[in-house]
């Protein structure tokens, strides 16, 4: 890591510590300040409530021109998240704007958990299930949450 950390990253990091968003935490790695360990609580009222999901977040060199790269580490049953944890979310792709920040992105992800969108699936199987048998799908999601996303 040759280049010094941009002011923007430093400021975001600082602010994530000093003004944490409830239910979300992001800790930079000591050896790589662009790499964050993220934990997002499942939103209340959703099938992920009670779960604590771990994600990894990486800020590429051209951040904030480019969106951060982010992935679920915790297994999750969700139509917009594939088996590798990759997330289908517009603000992480075409709708990225440099005005968005780590904080806002994580909030978006939390919101995504609260409002799965099977119409724009990443995980076809889950999406299919979600569309054809939503109660079953929600049940599976709850199970998975209990199974994989228990707070330690």
């Amino acid at each position, binding site marked *: 890591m040759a280049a010094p950390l941009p*002011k923007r990253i430093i*400021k975001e990091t600082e602010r994530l510590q000093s003004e944490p968003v409830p239910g979300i935490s992001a800790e930079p790695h000591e050896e790589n300040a662009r790499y964050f360990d993220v934990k997002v609580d499942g939103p209340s009222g959703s099938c992920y409530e009670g779960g604590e999901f771990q994600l990894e977040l990486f800020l590429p060199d051209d951040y904030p021109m480019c969106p951060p790269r982010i992935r679920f580490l915790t297994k999750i049953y969700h139509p917009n998240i594939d088996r590798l944890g990759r997330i289908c979310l517009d603000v992480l792709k075409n709708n990225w704007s*440099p*005005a968005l920040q780590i904080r806002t992105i994580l909030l978006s992800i939390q919101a995504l958990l609260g409002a799965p969108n099977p119409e724009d699936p990443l995980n076809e199987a889950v999406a299919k299930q979600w569309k054809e048998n939503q109660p079953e799908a929600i049940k599976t999601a709850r199970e998975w949450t209990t199974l994989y996303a228990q707070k330690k």
Partner: protein
Amino acid sequence: MTDVQERPHKKRRFFVDDDEPQQEPEFAAEPSLPDEINTAPEASEHVSHAEQEYTQDVFDPDTFKAVVGGEVPHSAIRSLQKRFSTNLEQAINAYFDGSWRTPSPQKPKPPAVGLKFPRALGREGSSTCSSKENGTTSGKTSPPPALEAMPSTRYIGALGVAGWTTRSGNGLLKPGDNVKIERTKQAMPQKVGRGGRPKQLQRKTQDVIVRFTNMKGEEIGRLEKDNANWISTLVDQKVCSFHGTCVFAPERIRTNDTVYLQLKCYMLKQAFEKGNFIKPLENNRQTGLFETKETTDEQDLRLRQVALVQLFQEINLQPSKVNETTAKHKREGILQAAQVAEQYDNQDATQKAKKSSTPPENGGSSPPSEENEEGEELEQDQLDTLYKKAQSFDFDTPVTEPAETFVMDLRKYQKQALHWMINKEMQQQDSERAAAQSMHPLWEEYLWPGKDADEKDLPHVASQEAFYVNPYSGELSLDFPVQEQTCRGGILADEMGLGKTIEMLSLVHSHTSPEQQAAIAAGGAAAEDSVSSLTRQLKKTDDVISAPATTLVVAPMSLLAQWASEAEKASRPGTLRTMMYYGNEKNANLQTLCSAANAANAPNVIITSYGTVLSEYNSVAALGEGARGRHGGLFSLDYWRIILDEAHMIKNRQSKTAKACYELSAHHRWVLTGTPIVNRLEDLFSLVRFLRVEPWSNFSFWKTFITAPFEKGEFVRALDVVQTVLEPLVLRRTKDMRTPSGEALVPLPAKIVEVEHIQLSQPEREVYDHIYARAKRTFAANVEAGTLMKSYTTIFAQILRLRQSCCHPILTRKKEVVAEEDAAEEAADIANGLADDMDLVTLLAKFQAEEGEQDASKFGTNVLKQIQDEANMECPICSEEPMEEQSVTGCWHSACKKCLLDYIEHQTQKNEVPRCFNCREPINARDVFEVIRHEPDDAEDEDVDNSIVAGHRLTAAIDADGEDDNEDLYSSTQPFKPDAKPKAAARISLRRVNQLSSAKINILITHLKKLKKAEPQTKVVVFSQFTSFLDVLGPALTGASIHYLRFDGSMSQKERARVLTDFANRTKFSVLLISLRAGGVGLNLTCAKRVFMMDPWWSFAVEAQAIDRVHRMGQTEEVKVTRLVVGNSIEEKMLRVQDRKKFIASSLGMMSDEEKKMQRIEDIKELLS
């Protein structure tokens, strides 16, 4: 009468031709010009021919005897041989008039011994001589009474001449008869010559016919051409009259016979009267208004000069007193000058041989040679040799400390200069006293002969033993010509940057006139006194009055302000009164102000421009006699000292400015110049002429000893003389001189020059490539057609456009840029050349975003408030707080300019439509506006400096303390009024970010911003050769909130001065935009320490000179120069051309226009390769 007589006479002469075949070609060549027959010899014993025939050291005694016709003692012949060597004619004259007996040539008076002069003459000779003697005795000899004053004519000598008859008859003329010598000018030249050939119109001036008539008034004949040439001049100009006596004539005279006459020469009284002679340059009116007349005056002068010298030679009158220095040169003599003139004329004549052969000395078809020749240019090495001598500066020269009223520290070499200068001024004063009795170096003294040719005593005139002649001007005087004060100053030729101005100012402080010292000593008393004396002075005097406390400084306009400020800086407050005398500021009557009576209050330094001197010179000249004093201006005073700065301004002695400067009078005269000789020896003459260095300030003298030898190829001799002239006059040191211990004369801080290569943006590159392809096509086409030289301007114009496009593409559309360039015809070319070029127009359109005159109503209250509110927030993109160069999108979302543009760029690269980072509205790079915040400080500047106000698209006033409910305060249409709003009000305006920008400008702005941040007090000079580029740079700097001033050739002196003062006095970061040309000479910009060269010039020397405005004496800090050069472009290639040029010894200045073009073509080949 003349023509009627001449024709038959000529026929006879063709008869004679049989006897004299060697004359034939000459006559045959010019049959139609009878008065140009310049000799009438017929017999071989002719005196004039005898002269030509003898080339040995001495004349042949036999011939001599044959001529004088009898026994001559050997001793007499030997003595004559000794004195006249080969000059048989003179010897014969001397023999006849008896002057050969004179023991030394210094005493032309014949000794009072014996009257044995005509003894032992031959049969013819004896009779003629005795009778002649009788004749003259009766006519002239009388007891010598002492006369009270100069008689109307006075005898000075006699000579023998030959003439030829124009009539035939018996007893027309007998030996001993008196003959009259007459000049009859031909009234008008003949319209048509023989054979119908038109005659030369100048014929009148060629008329040198001198007739002689017998006592009955019948014309007998004419004098031979050789003598007639100068005799006619003397008679015409009323210098002399001649009385002739026939010495020999055949009894029966036939036309074209030769007769011998003795002429007695009498000087006319009026010849000595002042005013009878036109003195060129002495009278303003003549030189000022009758420029053409001056040529004839000068021609007359020259003729008289030559005639007098010949007269003295013929009558063998030697000067009794000559100035030593002049005498040294005298032997090579004034006649050499005449010879040179003759050569000129002969050359001229051969060129026009078919028309006529111009008689020598008479100018003929060409004006006098000194009038129109300009002198040859010096080769560089000759110039070097010259300077070398003057530059052998002795580092052990004593120093003089300046007066204590002078507060600047002088370096050692400057104190040495002061010592030298004071010495010059003081020494000269001493020598002036000594000079009171010494004769003016150009004049010669001649004793009036006491006896005439017949040894008769002549009337003696009381207290007039001698008369005086200036052989270099042909002036005559009865009064002793006192040596005028010679040069009381010199040439300070230190190289640029060594501080000539300072040195001069130290002199102003340290050597004052006695009157001024007295005035200072008297102090207040004198001041009171001056009130009464002022009233006395008010009645205007016609005379030039003395200004003993005043030094006049004449400088180019651009340096006036600098002189004034340097003078102020160098002086203890209150010790030096300076006054600008320029333009509208010259309302004062200088006579009143500067008179001796007012010495205590008179300005000590008056600073004026060459233009002012010239215009006053013209108006004084127009007023006529006595105008100098009445005018009350620069010419009405006799200053203590005059200083001409950048004195090569007067290098052309014929220019009016030079003539005007010569007329200024002063005790001490100084010229400052880094280049005393620009390229001709005559350049130096003008300085010497101004300094009034006798005898060199006489152009005839100068020409004789410097110009003529130089043109004859005797370079060494000419340059030797120039060195002798220069050595006592010039002090010159150069920057690279080192003291014996090896230290630089002027240690200057380091100078770092860096080249920064710039990449053009894509649209710029497109424009560049387009023009480049075009230029290359044109070039190739012309190479193929072989019309390279013909289409030079076209190609050159395209190269110019290429260079402009490197600066900013829109420059190529501006016409005025041409004014900066060499050839004016390029103007048309540029205007027309690309007009039809639609591709380029399209390309350029990108740079000419429609004027940002957006409807102000678009900017609603909230928007402006929002922008204002956001100003101090952090950038949403980079989190910088506050934003750097806050800019807004078309949808009014703010971010740093760079962030915003980077993001747009980022999206564009991904082939996405750029959208607002905030609202995702599609946005456009052109719709990004930078928010310009005007600090109160800048607002103040605007009041004095219009430049900042210029070019704003849209202005919105915002009250920083804004009351939310006051809508009006946010009205975007309300202009900011400095006096209406308190200072707290911050004004913002929005400016399109991408407008008027180019890669080069961006780099410059980036540099400047960094500098401003890092060193908020630094001053920067930005040079460009294109004023149109400066036009673009200005608003760009404003946009970046960078204060700037501008200096270019179009500004008035007052503006320039103000700009320079402002720039020097500003305490904050400031930029001076300056055009390369305007900043080339003299300026002192040492207050800056950063330089940006926006575009390369053909030779680096020009850029270097500009850089030296900053990196010169007085610079205390390291100077960093950044040369901005567009990579992979013509500019880079120009750098290569520059490098190559450094190795070409002769600069462009030494080349002819054609050579320059060739050179440029070579350059262009390289540029387009």
